[in-house]
């Protein structure tokens, strides 16, 4: 047992996964008990019984999940997963990898939950594209940290200052995002001397969301996030008032 191979690591992870799944299936079995099993007459359907109650299939599913998780637990214990499960090496803990995936996870969370509903789509997407590329191109830990802090701060600021949907069109968070984006872009450009790829980042970050949002809104004529955003509001206004009369009349 000197060297831990990949299967061993997997079994150690399985140990934890099965413990989590046992807990989850027990929780949902308990939630299922809130759904009436013995029927009675529901929603105008007479003659309901246990076999067509809304709880029967979920009971099978979570029961099955519980059984399969137990089997997995047994497999992982028998192959030595339990002994390895408590040590970091055993579950293949890799600090750099955990740092990488958790910073990305945080950025995506801040983007989807904090920024997209509240901040102009071009601004927040530009920030996120710049941050993700800058943070992970070349694999420098410090850059990833800076990028992650910038996006998380913007997301948190938007989320905390405008929690209610009624305020989502306010522009304070748009300005914060814009400033962070400019700051990050300058940082990218300052490093772009030796790393030529970084030179393209600002262009991609501006053009990609701009083209996408315009194609969606004016080409496909669909709904886009944050219609009242700082930049999109202007684009929409000028599209209808300045541009479109050119070919409509």
């Amino acid at each position: 047992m000197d060297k831990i191979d990949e299967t061993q690591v997997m079994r150690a992870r399985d140990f934890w996964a099965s413990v989590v799944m046992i807990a989850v299936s027990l929780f949902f079995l308990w939630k299922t008990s809130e759904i009436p099993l013995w029927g009675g007459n529901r929603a105008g359907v007479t003659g309901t019984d246990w076999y067509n109650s809304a709880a029967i299939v979920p009971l099978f599913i979570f029961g099955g999940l519980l059984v399969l998780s137990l089997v997995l637990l047994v497999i992982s214990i028998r192959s030595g997963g339990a002994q390895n499960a408590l040590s970091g090496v055993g579950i293949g803990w890799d600090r750099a990898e955990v740092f990488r995936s958790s910073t990305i996870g945080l950025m995506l969370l801040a983007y989807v939950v904090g920024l997209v509903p509240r901040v102009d789509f071009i601004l927040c997407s530009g920030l996120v594209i710049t941050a993700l590329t800058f943070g992970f191109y070349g694999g420098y830990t410090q850059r990833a940290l800076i990028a992650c802090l910038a996006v998380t701060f913007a997301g948190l600021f938007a989320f905390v200052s405008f929690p209610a949907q009624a305020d989502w069109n306010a522009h304070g968070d748009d300005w914060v995002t814009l400033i962070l984006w400019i700051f990050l872009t300058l940082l990218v450009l300052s490093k772009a001397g030796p790393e030529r790829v970084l030179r393209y980042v600002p262009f991609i970050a501006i053009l990609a969301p701009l083209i996408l949002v315009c194609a969606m809104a004016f080409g496909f004529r669909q709904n886009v996030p944050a219609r009242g955003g700082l930049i999109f509001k202007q684009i929409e206004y000028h599209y209808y008032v300045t541009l479109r009369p050119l070919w409509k009349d």
Partner: protein
Amino acid sequence: MRLRLGRLAAAAVMATGIAATASAQDYPYRDITTAVVWGAGGGTDTINRMIMAEMEKHLPVSINVINQTGGVAGSNGMVYVMNQPDDGYTLVGLSESNVTAAVQGGWDKKFDFWYPFIVGGSPDLISVPADSPYNSLEELVDAAKAAPGTIPAAASGAGSIHHLNLLAIEKGSGAEFKFVPYKGSAPGQEAAIAGEVALVVTSLAEQAPLIEGGQLKPLAMLTPEDAQIGGATVPSAFGVYDGLDQYLPLKQAIGFAVHSSAGDDVKAALGEAFEQAIASDTVAEWAAANNYDVGGQHGAEAQELFANLEATFAYTLQDLGAATVDPASLGIQKP
């Protein structure tokens, strides 16, 4: 750096200033968006796309139709439109089924939150599989009376317009069927063809291709009028059972709505375009080809119609035990 930021800010302030003056323009100056609360390809979606294309001709702007689905009884879409400004640039495409959203816990507004425009609806009818032993409504009802609660009857989910029509025919004729809910009209009709159920209640528009294709046999219309389909006449159930007019007709009301709180100029502009569109040949031809009756109500008349539907649906659902919110607590009057 500071200079650039300052210039940017100045430009942005200028642009915002322009936008502020824009709102003073006449309605509508920019495109209108209609968010249909049901999926693409369905009845409500099709009707909205048709009527919006027609209304565009009488408005200086275009109308986009998008879909905002999900929730219960279309609540996700209604909540979405509710949260948009009441400036008349976001309409909601809806149908009679949406009146149950409140009592089913989808949102917390009475339906008079909307100012509706009704394009029309298709009448419901009762049909049996082509090889069914029943050839008239009486035969079917007599069979049901002989063995109450055993003949399986398909209709879309509990609390839908078709389910309410099924309930009405049960009350009016004294028969009792075994109600089997399906997720939508198409699966219910499919089940009737496969012989899984003995009868199906859906709208004429939905059944027409199957009746014409000889896969379903129509027994009776659930409206006071007879109907013509595939060269044959489908008799009205009203002539068979006298008590029916107490419960029926319960008809679809498909159309769109704007916030009740929208300005009078918005309602007037939309109303004018709507009336012109409804009067057009395109709408008449479309309705005839697809077995729809054109409604054309808007304003107070349409609001009253929806209030009635809301009361009927809400209290029926409560009786059936499918309402999670007490309609009285929402201020809905008992019909």
